[in-house]
């Protein structure tokens, strides 16, 4: 299979993730779309690794790291959403404007 | 000699640092400042006496220590015919300012004397430095203290005027920095002496560099379109601030032309000279006209500085030994005369609480005979009466404009000369109108007991009067100093 297919799929996945981040109001859904973007990156990396027949498999190594990073980010992200919910009783992402320009 | 030069810089620095330390110095601050500036003046006179007048063109007493090797900046000091008079003028004016302060109990004396000493450090440093970036550093040391002198001890609208002053001058010096670094990028060296000797730069880079450096210096001079900060700064500055601002700060701009712009970028200077001349002449007439319709005395003298600096710039624009001699002479003369004028106007403002001509009333010669007669003397000196210092600067500038350097358009400079001459007449007009409105006219007998000039004030003013007379009657005192230096860098036999 030519490398362009996974690359295009990854790009599409990435765009959906971007749309999710920009359009959704609920913070948790924003986090989910960010995860989507990160997975698009993983797809891209693995596809290139196979296509390049890289001896060091650096693509797959980086994918592992990305997965770990994604996990860490979700952990912290949800903790912060919890903190925001506890103090503001609402987690609409575009409602949090207290720190805006005076 | 070089030890003395370093002493000239070290003394104000140590004086200022001593004032910073919280302690008993606060009470005797003015006397302490007087002592420090006195010693600096003595050292300046010592430098003047040790100076080898036969070789005034050569840089003497050079101090050349590496300061920041990575940047190529060297702590390079030196003094020659051009900078000696200005250094002595600075030391004298600062001393007289502190003498004047001794007579008046200023509020927050410690901070004021600290600011004055740092100002003196910056001014003397600018005149002594022979390294482009060192020149720039000292050029900027002056900004913060002058800002605080205006902003803290000034008149009503002082905050706005102080902001305009520091922002405008900083823009000028930022552009100057770009110019200096462009010269450095082209030639690879920061040493003024070596740059003035050989001119490694091509023609268009020289023009670009001259425009950038010229703009930076023009803001400080001030040249015509970039002058609007001066009247506000002078109206709001305290007496001492005005004297130093007019007496020395303006000279740093014109000194920059004589030391940095013209010797290092001759072709750039030749290309830009007609424009410089045009703006200078417009400045002369513009300043004179603005003074004619001015209601406030301090603004009037500020605009007169714009006019006089127009003559100095015209002198520079001619690029001939006569012209540049005229510029340097006008520089020193303007420092003395306008310094005296601002001292007197400051004294009036402190007595009557205002410098507005209508509220000051008329017949000052009757009420304050000494102050008024000194004001008449200063005004007459300022309008360029022969026999007083102001005349030689203007006359030689017009003479220089009559026969400009070879490459410059002769017809254009002749029109500059004619307009400059008319400007001189207008200068005479507004000074005499000011005198007649203020000193002449009915004064209704002895008014409330406003005391005439006090002995302390007179000790601050009389040296200036004497110097104006000396430089008026005996011009070769200064011309002998600057001519060899000017001929050296203009390469004219």
């Amino acid at each position, binding site marked *: 299979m030519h490398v362009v297919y996974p*690359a295009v799929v*990854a790009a599409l996945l990435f765009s959906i993730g971007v749309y999710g*981040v920009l359009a959704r109001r609920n913070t948790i859904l924003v986090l989910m779309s960010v995860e989507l973007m990160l997975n698009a990156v993983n797809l891209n990396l693995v596809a290139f690794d196979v296509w390049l027949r890289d001896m060091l498999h650096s693509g797959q190594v980086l994918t592992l790291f990305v997965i770990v*990073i994604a996990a860490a980010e979700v952990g912290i992200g949800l*903790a912060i959403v919890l*903190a*925001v919910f506890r103090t503001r009783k609402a987690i609409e992402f575009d409602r949090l404007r*207290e720190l805006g320009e005076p | 000699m070089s030890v003395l030069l370093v002493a000239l810089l070290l003394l104000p620095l140590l004086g200022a640092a001593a004032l910073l330390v919280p302690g008993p110095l606060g009470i005797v601050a003015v006397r302490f400042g007087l002592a420090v500036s006195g010693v600096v003046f003595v050292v300046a006179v010592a430098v003047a006496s040790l100076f080898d007048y036969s070789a005034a063109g050569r840089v003497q007493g050079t101090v050349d220590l590496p300061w920041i090797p990575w940047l190529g900046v060297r702590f390079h000091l030196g003094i020659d015919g051009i900078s000696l008079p200005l250094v002595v003028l600075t030391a004298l004016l600062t001393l007289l300012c502190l003498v004047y302060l001794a007579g008046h109990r200023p509020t927050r004396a410690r901070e004021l004397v600290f600011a004055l000493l740092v100002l003196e450090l910056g001014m003397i440093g600018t005149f002594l430095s022979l390294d482009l970036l060192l020149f720039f550093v000292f050029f900027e040391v002056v900004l913060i203290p002058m800002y605080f002198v205006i902003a803290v001890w000034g008149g009503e609208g002082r905050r706005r005027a102080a902001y305009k002053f520091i922002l405008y001058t*900083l823009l000028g010096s930022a552009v100057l920095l770009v110019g200096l670094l462009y010269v450095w990028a082209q030639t690879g060296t920061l040493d003024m002496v070596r740059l003035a000797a050989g001119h490694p730069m091509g023609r268009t880079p020289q023009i670009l560099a001259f425009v950038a450096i010229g703009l930076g210096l023009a803001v400080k001079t001030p040249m015509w379109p970039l002058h609007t900060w001066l009247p506000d700064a002078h109206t709001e500055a305290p007496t001492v601030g005005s004297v130093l601002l007019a007496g020395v700060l303006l000279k740093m701009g014109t000194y920059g032309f004589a030391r940095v712009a013209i010797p290092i970028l001759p072709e750039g200077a030749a290309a830009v000279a007609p424009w410089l001349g045009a703006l200078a002449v417009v400045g002369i007439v513009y300043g004179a006209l603005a003074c004619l319709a001015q209601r406030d005395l301090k603004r009037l003298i500020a605009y007169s500085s714009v006019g006089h600096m127009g003559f100095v710039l015209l002198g520079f624009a001619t690029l001939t030994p006569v012209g540049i001699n005229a510029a340097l002479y006008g520089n020193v003369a303007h420092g003395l005369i306008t310094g005296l004028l601002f001292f007197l106007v400051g004294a009036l403002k402190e007595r009557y609480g205002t410098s507005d001509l209508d509220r000051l009333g008329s017949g000052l010669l009757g009420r304050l005979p000494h102050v008024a007669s000194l004001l008449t003397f200063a005004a007459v000196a300022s309008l360029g009466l022969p026999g007083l210092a102001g005349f030689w600067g203007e006359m030689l500038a017009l003479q220089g404009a009559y026969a400009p350097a070879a490459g410059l358009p002769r017809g254009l400079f002749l029109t500059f000369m004619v307009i400059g001459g008319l400007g001189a007449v207008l200068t005479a007009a507004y000074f005499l109108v000011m005198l007649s409105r203020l000193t002449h006219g009915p004064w209704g007998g002895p008014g409330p007991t406003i005391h005439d000039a006090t002995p302390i004030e007179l000790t601050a003013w009389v040296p200036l009067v004497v110097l104006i007379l000396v430089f008026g009657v005996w011009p070769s005192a200064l011309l002998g100093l600057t001519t060899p230096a000017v001929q050296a860098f203009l390469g004219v036999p």
Partner: protein
Amino acid sequence: MIQSIDYWAIAAPLILALAAGLVLLLDAFLPARPGVRAALGCVTLAALVAAFVVVVAQRGVRETFCVPSIGCSYVVDATTIVFAGLALGAGAVVVLLSMAQLAEGDIPVGEWYFLLLAALAGAVTLPASRDLIMLVVALELVSLPVVALTALRRYDGRGAEAALKLFVVSVVSTAVMLFGVSLLYGVTGAVHLDAIAAALAQPERPGAGPVVAVGAVMVVAGFGFKIAAVPFHFWAADVYQGAPIPVAALLSVVSKAAGFAGLILLLTQALPSESATWTPIVAVLAALTMTVGNVLALRQIHPVRLLAWSSVAQSGYILAPVATTDAQAATAYLVFYAAMNLTAFAVVMAVPHDTLDGYRGLVSARPVAGLALAFALICLAGLPPGLAGLFAKVVVFREVVAGGLGWLAVVMAVNTVIGLYYYIAWTARLFTPADATRPAASGPAWIAVGVATAVAVGFSAAPQFVLATLG
């Protein structure tokens, strides 16, 4: 093939990581008495000092984690030492500040120091990393703990909101960066920076140009977020104001330094052949960053918010020389900037107020803090009594003018003037006579003010030592 590990090279991050673990354990087992809080602070400080000594002691170039044919992932050279030293120095001041912050009691001590040490470990490894994977991991190691630190204060709505904003923007930019990394990897087939450079040098791949360009831009976007360059600067003011002041100091100095280190490494080592495309972009970004930073700082009333926009503007000044492919000037400015900015943050921490007018007459009431803040602000403005700031600006101006970016130099000149306005506005307030009562600040904050001011004055008095170390 077993990679030999040069432990002396990775000694600094190793010490920090171990200290982080130790602090977490100590906090778990020791009773929660005030004495323990100070002890943990001292342990962290000791770790930082040890790491600093190790970093300074390293001479010459030391490489480790090397793959025989391609290159090494972890290289300690002169610039790495400077960046690591800067991060550790700034970290020390941040620890002092956080001792004062923790004294208020609403922040868990162990977690705070653990996250702080983790972030510093990332900041020390990033300048030494020479391949994209380590670069990404180190960048994340710097970003995520700081997000957590911002949200650590209990029941603090503003802190939580700031943390959320920082988190989302950070994660999105990391995603964009990773996508860029994947594209670069796809085109060049290599992960090590010098290998990428070699691959990009041969022009035989048709149609790869645009992909490399897009990949490079997306990776630069990741670092752009860290240094708060223009399109990525929106989060700066809100987060600085919301977060506790030590975290704001950390963000404005350590994470910015890490961002610049990564950016410089990427642009100068990985993409030198593409410099024709990214130099104009970086120049435009620099110009926009300074202008936006300065212009928005004009109207600020809240001191920390003003310092936030001022640090955005300052990163614009630091970015400008990067556009001339010579990064030494940027590093020099960064070092000076770090000292000046930390002094300002230290004083704001020592004497907290919500509006600039609160600082009216500080010089008469608290001479030390007043003069320190005035000195820092004048340094940031780049005027003579603050020689450090002046020479930093001169170095940057020199690079920009020598690099032929005349227009950028003029933009910088105008920006210094705009910048001067709000610095002088604040300094003027310090000197106006007013006798408002002053809240007393705790001990460590004063030590932080003292240390930071001493470093700033040291840089002003003798800038040549700093510049000499850059070589």
